[in-house]
């Protein structure tokens, strides 16, 4: 089976060593070299490689964030000089990783594992891996949304609310909407619970955007946002809201 591979690393020399090793291997074609995470996401969309060699420490978008964005479409082998959290994430989930510096035979062994995995039709446990790689303390400060080859970075304070839509969540942010394949439940675990509150089965609201709570003609509670937009509040949602606002 012929593997189409993209190499992602912000250092020229680090890409060069992977490229050199791969050049000697039959049935492997390097289709792209990317110097940062944004290029990697673009390459995955446009060239659909089978495998990424992905550096972890990169500017703006690190390797884990890239994995979170494209991991459903492509197999990933991490390449890093940092063993501590890499090892934690990988040993648990049995995905391969290369520790710099590494030799050609170690890289060949990684390719064998990838082929085996692709042959079985396994997909990577992306959610678990991304969750394991999250910093242990603190909440995420930005949401990354992939839009084909592009990546949108949404600072959490600019998100007005999030709405569940089937298998997706829709972020409302500065007048625009962004879709991401995720559940509201997963999202709740990474966002600051003192800022974002689940006011309804389908809605997660940024408290900063709440102007007031009203009753409609059928005695249902409605959240009115600063821009006048109205969102439904469920009974349990109202209880959460009241608790958070200390009423």
């Amino acid at each position, binding site marked *: 089976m012929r593997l189409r591979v993209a190499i992602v690393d912000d*250092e*020229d*020399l680090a890409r060069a*060593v992977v490229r050199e090793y791969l050049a000697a291997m039959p049935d492997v074609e390097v289709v792209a070299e990317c110097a940062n995470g944004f290029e990697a996401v673009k390459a995955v969309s446009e060239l659909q490689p089978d495998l990424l060699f992905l550096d972890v420490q990169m500017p703006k978008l690190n390797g884990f964030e890239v994995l979170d964005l494209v991991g459903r479409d492509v197999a990933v082998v991490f390449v890093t000089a940092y063993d501590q959290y890499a090892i934690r994430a990988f040993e648990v989930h049995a995905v391969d990783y290369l*520790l*710099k510096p590494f030799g050609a035979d170690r890289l060949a062994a990684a390719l064998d594992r990838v082929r085996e995995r692709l042959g079985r039709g396994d997909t990577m446990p992306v959610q678990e891996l991304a969750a394991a790689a999250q910093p242990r303390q603190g909440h995420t*400060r930005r949401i990354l949304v992939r839009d084909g080859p592009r990546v949108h*970075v949404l600072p959490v304070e600019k998100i007005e609310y999030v709405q569940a839509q089937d298998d997706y969540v829709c972020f409302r942010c500065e007048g625009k909407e962004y879709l991401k394949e995720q559940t509201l439940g997963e999202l709740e675990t990474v966002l600051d619970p003192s800022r974002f509150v689940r006011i309804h089965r389908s809605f997660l609201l940024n408290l900063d955007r709440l102007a007031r709570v009203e009753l409609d003609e059928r005695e249902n509670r409605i959240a009115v946002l600063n821009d006048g937009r109205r969102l439904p509040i469920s009974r349990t949602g109202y209880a959460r809201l009241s608790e958070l606002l200390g009423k």
Partner: protein
Amino acid sequence: MHPILSRIDRLALYLAVWLSVCALVAGVFTRFGLNWTEALALLVPLFLVYAFVCLSAWYVSRATPLTSGGGSRVLSSSIVAATFASGLWLGVTRGWIAVLSLTAAFAPAAERYTQQLPFLFAIGVLLFMLSLAVHYVLLAFEAAREAERRQLELEILTRDAELRALRAQIDPHFLYNSLNSISALTGSDAPGARRMCLLLGEFLRQTLDVSARQRIPLGDELAMAERYLNIEQVRFGSRLRVERRLDQDASGCLVPPLLLQPLVENAVTHGIARMLEGGLIRLDATRTNGRLAIVIENPCDAEPGGVAARPGGMGLDNVRNRLDAMFGREARMDTRAAAGVFRVELELPCA
């Protein structure tokens, strides 16, 4: 609380000393027409009371420490306090004589008791002054011990900072990444790989050499930082640019070894490595009026929601602690992130 009152054994010893002084004074009184029984009946209760009054010298000694001004101020406040205490004691004595005169056994001695009052007043002043002197000695002793303790603490802190600096001096990831670069270069650029090996070897040898020394010239420290940056240059290529300005005057200033190294490493790992396009690291050292000023600047991520430069990172704390331990208030370190530039300023003495 007074240290004598806080422990029963100290209090017992203190009172024993007072009772012996009391016996001495009673002996003197027997020469002036009082018999032993009469003298002791008068003096024992009075001395026990005065023993406690004299403990107030502790507060006087603290309110007017020897360091607070001239000896005349200490002396005058001592005399005032002693006169006041003795005057108080005189009042108590009069009362006690009045009580004793009511008893049949001591009524005949009342006249002779009253004759001793001026003498007792003088003794009261003297004893209070003596108590003050003892308290001042104790205070000085305590201060010396405190200074010694602080010195010891400082030494421990210095040792600790040095140890941590030694441990932090070679970041293993720096080595891994450098080795990976060498591994890459061997395939495409053998002379480059050799150059990198030499740079790395020189850098490691230098860091080990200087870490054994107390102070090194700033010029040497900066040369080491430069070598480090040369190595990182191979990794980051055009993303890493360096601008260096070193006053000829400043290069001879003696600094603790590896003082700047953590700051330069920070500038690369938290600055350059986090920028898509990299950027410029500025090193600037000047000397004016016996003070050495060092500035290190690197670009940092100013984007909201981005990974901001952490002002309290391990490397920065380490440098700050070492400066504190070595120079105390003579040295200063400020950090500031503004408009996408992270800036560290050091100022330390350079005679």
